[in-house]
């Protein structure tokens, strides 16, 4: 190895050590832990794939996975559609658009716990903002988080409220679309919807793809607001909440680690699938 290469190696050494100690080693350890019966305190007993067998026969696992999948299937496209629409609306430099950009993006910088507490009030069945507005129109609002049937819609409302998080990436992508294309389309008589459909959306597909992947990962890792707010009938028991409870509520660290690996595999598979579909719908030059 040349002197220059050696110097380079030593420059990246702190990062390399961090990667080994804080990422590679815990991952290898986690594979082993997932195959043990370990209650954190005592010694871990190797039980092979028993945790994985138990997991797939557990009602709670199925339920939490179902709660999470159902949320992801609806929330991810909903968030993409909402944030893309918001981005298109505020992308033009009209009077006041800067204010709206700030307002839409603001949820992204608010802590998850604070959001959960605010929504606890917004969704309060008796004195909440939402039911207050509904009652103004003579509609009796539901019990939201206290009614199992309304827990998922409650979380979807929260998701839409926070959709501005990806606004910046969409805005940046919108700015990259050449104005000439819109000009040419207008000369050809394309109306606003046609311009969005045939120019904006296709050219935005790379960033939609990026947000789709991140959205899927985020939906499956949903934790903070679900942990704070919960939901009637365990409908707010998302996968990560279940994992956390198993690890630190019931002290089943081996089982919880197996849950974490299953989640990793699910997310990995979904990412591969989405990546495979890329060639059919993502625009590339």
């Amino acid at each position, binding site marked *: *190895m040349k002197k220059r290469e*050696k110097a380079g*190696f030593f420059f990246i*050494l702190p990062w390399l*050590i961090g990667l*080994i*100690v804080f990422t590679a*080693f815990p991952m290898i350890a986690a594979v082993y832990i997932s195959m043990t019966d370990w*209650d*954190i*305190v*005592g010694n871990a007993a190797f039980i092979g794939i028993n945790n994985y067998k138990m997991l797939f026969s557990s009602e709670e696992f199925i339920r939490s996975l179902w709660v999470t999948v159902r949320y992801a299937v609806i929330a991810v496209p909903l968030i993409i559609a909402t944030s893309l629409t918001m981005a298109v609306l505020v992308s033009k430099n009209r009077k006041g658009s800067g204010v709206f950009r700030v307002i839409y993006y603001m949820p992204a910088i608010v802590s998850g716990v604070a959001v959960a507490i605010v929504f*606890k009030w917004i969704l*309060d*069945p*008796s*004195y*909440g903002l939402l039911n207050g507005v509904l009652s103004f129109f003579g509609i009796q609002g539901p*019990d939201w988080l*206290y*009614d199992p049937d309304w827990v998922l819609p409650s979380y979807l409302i929260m998701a839409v409220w926070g959709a501005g998080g990806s606004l910046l990436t969409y805005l940046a992508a919108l700015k990259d679309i050449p104005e000439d294309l819109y000009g040419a389309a207008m000369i050809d008589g394309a109306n606003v919807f046609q311009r969005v459909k045939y120019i904006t959306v296709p050219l935005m597909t790379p960033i939609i793809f990026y947000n789709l992947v991140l959205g899927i990962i985020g939906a499956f890792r949903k934790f903070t607001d679900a942990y704070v707010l919960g939901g*009637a*009938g*365990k409908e707010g028991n998302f996968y990560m909440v279940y994992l956390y*409870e198993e690890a*630190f*509520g*019931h*002290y089943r*660290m081996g089982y919880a680690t197996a849950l974490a690996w299953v989640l990793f595999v699910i997310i990995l598979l979904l990412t591969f699938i989405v990546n495979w579909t890329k060639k059919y719908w993502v625009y590339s030059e």
Partner: protein
Amino acid sequence: MKKVLSVILITVMLAALTGCGNASSQSGKKTYTFATWAAGTELQEFQQIIDKVNEEANGEYTIEVLSIPSDYYVKISTKIAAKKSPDFFWLTQELISKYADMGALADITAQFEASSVLKPDMFYEGVLASAQYNGSYWGLPWIANPMMVYYNKTMFTDMGIPCPEATDDWTWAEFIDVCRQFSGKEYRGNTVYGTVIDGWPNIETFIWAGGGDIIGEDGTTIVLDSEEAKNGLGYLQTIVAEGLSPRYAEVSSLGDNNVWFEKQRVAMYFGGMQDNFEIKVAAMSEDEQFEIGYAPLPVCDGGGQWSFDWTASTVMAKSLEGDETAYKALEAVTQAFFEWKIAPPVKDSVENVVNINPTKENALETIAYTMEYARSAYYIPEWSDINDKLWYNLYVQLLSDSNFDYKAEMDTIAAYARELINQRK
């Protein structure tokens, strides 16, 4: 270069492994760490107590404070996992059996029974039982917070309803009758209720009300599906069905359930001894103030009278088992705690309650009465799993729908609990 790289990688891996395997407390050591969830003012008070204990130890030992104000149990358990357990730490009653079963705690039975400083018979029996598991003592209780009934004496008087007495032997049926006299009536421009229930008081309180229990005293028998336990939950069903408490979904609208009592929306509240309604009411404007009355929990069917008690114990790390100096420090610090918070879990100390908290003077008679029958549930290592079912599948269901078939669910949970115990390693 490959060799250098290999050496570095191996060194890093070994360092990581070594870091995970180091024990922090060893027998004979004279400096102990004490983990606490106390924060802010409470932490300052805690530190002062520890400083005083250290001073009185005359250099025999020193206790150092380790404050863990958030995610306390997550951090405690990970420290134990990393073989860096604090020497002393607080543990709430339902976790004693779990931690003892996992081998994290020192068995202090021999030292406790032989001690001339703090003896088992000095403690209230029901409170001390919370630190026992499998016939051994695993910690020293330092605080007791049993439940009693706070009531709005002004509301009772204004509405012409006779008040319960400070040591009343009223039954649950009588309690419900009193609730009926308030619920749905107007008071100070609001509809009021007899009491408020939203998961508090806990399900044990109602199960005990019928003379039943969840787990037997032996820690292996499940009695949740007994007729007595079902009758007890019948009282809860009556309260929900007759609207004697605000709807479950409505309670949080005012904030925590205690706000319903503070805002004079309910006549009676099941509160812990430590609840500071006296201070809150004194801080209210004159027209909002009301007189607080105190009564014990109603007598259970069959004559038993239990008040659910929340107790925390100070426990010692397993590595200190048999360490006489450590046990001496544990005793010294526990005794100091008795002068700090209410209620001290030892007999003949009720008068001390007023010294610690003068606002509780009017409650003294009820406190003294309640302490005699304060107890926690019989907790076993499987409690967290059983409790999950009790909460989600039973209590919340019944609170949300009074027609819920709670008896069938109690049978299901009892069968589940028995299976868990059968699988015990």
